[in-house]
């Protein structure tokens, strides 16, 4: 089976030779929820930004459903949806205008966009606010709007950077549900988080990164062993000090 996301020897080096990520390789299979864990500054966001084509990289290869992120960026982006850790949205348009814009960009037909906007907006409880300017939204509402925008084209790969920060418990519950639904339909999810409990319960696979190097990667059970994910994470961090 072909991986939805395959990262091969990915290296990101900054101008003074400092490596943000060094020779990282991992793959995410269809139907898989893959958690990406690490300290602040470990290289999680750098990897994610390279995967979604927002940032270039020096060495290695990133393939999305078999397409090269370097050589076929538009094709890869069509298959991907990305939510950054702090989604700044266009303040000067309304929520519905933002969603319609994203649907246009991903060429979602009218029937599907209307169905999906209705479904997800109701689920996240922001239907009534869709006609208001984004600038009037709270941080959580903006995050919900960004999530809905990401779900509109049923992405093959959903990439999320700290998706649970700022969400209320109900929205977090629905997000987890949607993530599972998407995976049951053959999509894959690659997300970073600091919330180890959530990662432990939600993820099929876990990768831990430290100072730009992949320390451990495997199924959640294998990584966790007999302890908790928190124990493993602390152990890895302590051993590497």
């Amino acid at each position, binding site marked *: 089976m072909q991986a939805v996301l395959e990262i091969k020897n990915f290296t990101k080096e900054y101008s003074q030779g400092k490596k943000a990520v060094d020779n990282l390789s991992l793959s995410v299979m269809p139907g898989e929820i893959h958690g990406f864990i690490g300290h602040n500054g470990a290289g999680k966001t750098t990897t994610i930004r390279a995967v979604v084509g*927002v940032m*270039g990289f020096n060495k290695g290869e990133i393939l999305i459903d078999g397409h090269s992120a370097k050589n076929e960026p*538009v094709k890869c982006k069509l298959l991907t949806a990305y939510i950054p850790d702090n989604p*700044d949205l*266009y303040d000067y348009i309304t929520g*519905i205008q933002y969603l319609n814009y994203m*649907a246009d960009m*991903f060429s979602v037909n009218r029937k599907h966009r209307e169905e999906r906007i209705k479904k997800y907006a109701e689920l996240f409880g922001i239907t009534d606010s869709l006609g208001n300017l984004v600038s009037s939204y709270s941080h959580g509402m903006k995050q919900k709007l960004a999530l809905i925008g990401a779900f509109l084209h049923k992405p093959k790969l959903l990439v999320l950077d700290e998706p649970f920060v700022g969400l209320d418990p109900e929205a977090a519950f629905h997000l987890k549900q949607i993530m599972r639904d998407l995976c049951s339909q053959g999509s894959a999810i690659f997300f970073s988080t600091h919330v180890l409990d959530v990662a432990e319960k939600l993820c099929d696979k876990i990768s831990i990164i430290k100072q730009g190097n992949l320390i451990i990667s495997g199924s959640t059970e294998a990584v966790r062993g007999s302890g908790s994910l928190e124990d493993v994470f602390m152990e890895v961090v302590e051993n590497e000090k």
Partner: protein
Amino acid sequence: MKNRYLLLLKMQLYNFFGINCILNSHSKKEKQRSMALGGLVIFIIGLMIVYSTTISMSIASMGAVNILPTISALICSLITLILTFLKSSGVLTGLRDYDMVMSLPVKNSEVVLSRLTMVYLTNLLISIIVVLPSVVIFGINAEMGISGNIMFLLSFFFLPVIPMIISLGLGVLISAISSRSKHKNIFSLALSTLIVLLIVAASTKAQSMNTDEILNIGILFSNITNEIYPPAALISKAVEQQNWLYFLVFVGMSILISVIFVGTVTHFYQKINTATFNHSATKFEGKILQVSSPLKAMYKREFERYFSCTIYALNSTIGMVLLLVVTLLLLFISPEALEQQSNIIGLSQMLRQILPMVIAVFITMTSTASASLSLEGKNRWIMCSVPVRAIDIFNSKIAVNLTVICPFVLISAVLLGFKMGISLKQAILLCIVPTVYACFISILGMYMNLKFPKYDWTSEYYAVKGGAISVLATMGVGMLSSLIPLFVCIVFQNISTLIMVATSILLLVFSIILYRQLQQYQLYEI
């Protein structure tokens, strides 16, 4: 504890012309960019000083050195008035860091004062450029006592104050009025355009008054000054009569007006900003969604952006508004009457010939594209992650620029063409030259913004003005590309057609080269 006002000011200065990035960046690319920026700023300042010195020397050689204080006061005040007004909406209201600043243990007055000081320092630079050469020329040529020279020298610290307060006051007033409206940005834009037109009309009126009284230029200018701007007259009288009382009245007036303004704005600061950030919540009722192609969707969003930011729309459309004003003026004054009034023989024929280049000058003042990337700011992750080619994004931004330019140019070209009774050859040139210039300035603006983006702004003002190198560079290169051929056309009228055709071909080739460069860019490089 350090003075909090100074700390607030320091933070703003860090952002000014990207000074902090220049000082602290380790990136070679960033350093090169900063050097280019510094070089351009020094070049522009140098050019303005040379221009100002030349004017002062010409006036002195005409034997009218005594009117230098009045003229420099008038010019400095007018420039301050227009420039400050254009940026007034982003100075005191609608700032992105408003919440952060207001949560700090600072008084409203300290916030207001720090913002005003920043504007004052920018205006002071203009004042120095305009007034300092005059002071030197005046000191050398005028037979004036030491106190007259000292007063003139000291005046440039105070000259920008009153016009700055007037402009900022109008800006705050517009924010306060338009904040009640649902379409506040369009309302604000309309009001702002109206005020700019009034300022331009007033200065045009002042300039047109000198035609009959060219020999009596001293009296004429003092009349105009008294009529339009009494504070400048005070400076003139103070220097001329070496009267410290007039000077002190002028200084006192400037300080008093500032204190009243700071007090008033401080009192209403939170109220005005709350109103600016407030939004009326309406319940969304489902409607049929319009489906568009990605390019059309981006184009529509670019337009939303254009109308959402008053300073952006006003700054990038002012050239077209001025073109419309000039067109309307020329409609009511026949070229022959203009020729008679100005005593320039052959002016009407010359105007017919150089009309395409005159329109081109206004076109080169208009570039929405030069700030369009910078304005993406923190939203640029969306632009980078959507499945479109980088060139499609640039095309949508270029298309908006062309959409802004085209209607104005079309109206002006048709009206002026008919009014002046141009020939077929002139009509063809009137189609070709502005079209080429419109394409050129749009592509150039896009290219410059790619080379010199400014994403880390706290107010849209810094992306559009306030040291936005891409905007300055586009305007500078654009204006040179139109003013030089215009000048050459005036000097060599016999071959003006050839000059215009050659310039158009050259700019077209240059535009194609720049567009090819745009096609090479990858999205993550932005």
